[in-house]
């Protein structure tokens, strides 16, 4: 299993990805420290509605969310790349000569994606803590950070769910076919978004009010907690079932080592 994981780590250019994460973390820290109350002092304050607000906080605050979505965008690419590399290099034929079962091969894909998501989620939490902890402590900042943390959980649970759906397709149908389906899906989604932007009711976006969202969150705190607690468990169970199904089908698949 160790060897299979390392093979995939190299295939997805893991070292380069780790370097990108380190650079993002360093940028986050430096930006946070440079644009902090301790460094800028009064220069960063503006008065809005008779309230003195430290403006840089409201820009830097969204960095964890932005960076989380950025690295999350890499995830489907790495998912595909880990399978495509094996297909293109005909590595599976070589694996047939090693004491590696088809089940172990499938398990290595699931384990790698699970580890990747765990590391990315942990890093997004560390980013949120650093940005929030060094901000001027107000209720609004706290609410924004908590919302970002909650959305990070939702994002990574969604990515795990997507992996549970996509990995079986990649392993059973092949990377090229799945890539075509994905391109079609995202093109359709993009067309729908463009259509809505041109002809839809955009006033909905301007009517979004942060305070109303936070009030709603407080009214439905139990439901949000139940979702936040239950959905990761549900998706983890789904991920495991996806692995069992994929492994069972993959073991029956012929000519996996020739492709």
């Amino acid at each position, binding site marked *: 299993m160790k060897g299979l994981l390392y093979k995939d780590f190299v295939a997805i250019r893991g070292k380069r990805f780790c370097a990108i994460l380190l650079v993002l973390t360093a940028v986050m820290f430096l930006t946070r420290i440079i644009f902090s109350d301790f460094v800028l002092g009064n220069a960063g304050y503006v008065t809005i509605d008779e309230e003195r607000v430290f403006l840089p906080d409201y820009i830097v605050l969204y960095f964890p969310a932005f960076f989380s979505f950025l690295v999350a965008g890499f995830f489907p690419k790495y998912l595909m790349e880990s399978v495509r590399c094996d297909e293109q290099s005909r590595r599976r034929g070589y694996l047939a000569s090693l004491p590696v079962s088809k089940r172990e091969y499938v398990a290595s894909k699931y384990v790698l994606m699970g580890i990747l998501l*765990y590391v990315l989620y942990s890093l997004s939490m560390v980013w949120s*803590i650093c940005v929030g*902890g060094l901000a001027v402590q107000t209720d609004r900042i706290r609410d924004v950070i908590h919302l970002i943390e909650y959305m990070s959980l939702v994002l990574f649970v969604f990515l795990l769910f997507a992996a549970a759906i996509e990995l079986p397709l990649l392993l059973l149908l092949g990377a090229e076919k799945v890539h075509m389906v994905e391109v079609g899906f995202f093109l359709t989604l993009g067309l729908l978004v463009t259509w809505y932007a041109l002809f839809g009711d955009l006033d909905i976006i301007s009517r979004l009010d942060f305070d109303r969202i936070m009030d709603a969150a407080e009214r439905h*705190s139990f439901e949000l907690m139940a979702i936040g607690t239950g959905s990761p*468990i549900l998706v983890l169970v789904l991920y495991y079932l996806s692995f069992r199904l994929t492994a069972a089908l993959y073991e029956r698949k012929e000519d996996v080592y020739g492709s």
Partner: protein
Amino acid sequence: MAPEKNASRKEDLKRLLIYLLFAFVPVWLWFLAIRALTGGQLWNDMSDMVQSLMALGMLGPVLAHVATRLVTKEGCPLTGRDSMMLGIDLKNRKWIIFLLAIFLPWLYSEMGNALDLLLGNGVFDPEYYLEYGMDKRTVFLFPLAAITSGVIASFAAFGEEGGWRGYMMPRLLRLMGRTPALILGGVIWGLWHAPLTAIGHNFGTDYPGFPWLGILKMCILCIFLGVILTFLTEKSGSVWPAAILHAVGNAGPSILNGFVRPEEGAEQGLFSFLFSGRLISILLIAAVLLILWNRVPDAKEASKPVRETDRAA
């Protein structure tokens, strides 16, 4: 003592001292720096975001582990002999260890609250949860929420366990017998928490003998908790059960947390402070595990040191 064994003991001691230097100095500086940035606030006066920022120091031990391995040129093997014990192996009934890691914190937390009620350290208040602005249904979600957050957000606890159980305890166990190693390991771990205990992180500030008795109690708690964590690590060959247990325990998995109002402040006597329900429940579980220790097979490979003769072979 054979010369080879003596040399390896000296090597282990040297590496352990380097590790302790890396684990204590930067982390204590971090704690002190964050406290200075807040103008010397106590723990309960800090916002939850500043508390989280300070708690990032919990990643220190695992970073110290990595730094020590780089400095001592031990390498960073993830699994196997003398490794960082990052692997997960569920075979040979090791999955039971992982289940224990998930459910033991719930058990000792509920037991602890029940004992507090019996000992008079707490009062049953059916509406205590309302003081925190909670829905009653939320209280019953505590165990599940703690287990979920413990497993998913275990990186913070992994930061500690990756160092204490992943590096320090295997070397202490090799240097001395099990009992002295568990006691010394717990004292070291407890003292490491001293800057946080001294600002009220673990037990608040309103207890007799603050902060010195708090630091003593922390050392005692860490000894007993260390028994449980070391048991899980040795029997699974992995630091992950310890990280999960630590994370779930920190998340407060007890339903009774919403209904037991703790006795605090000047009314709290020395005995009730030192022998809280939680401490006694952890002690009981640690005692059971000590009895079972030799009856449960352990994953021996991970804790054995790699010798030069092994490398040559």
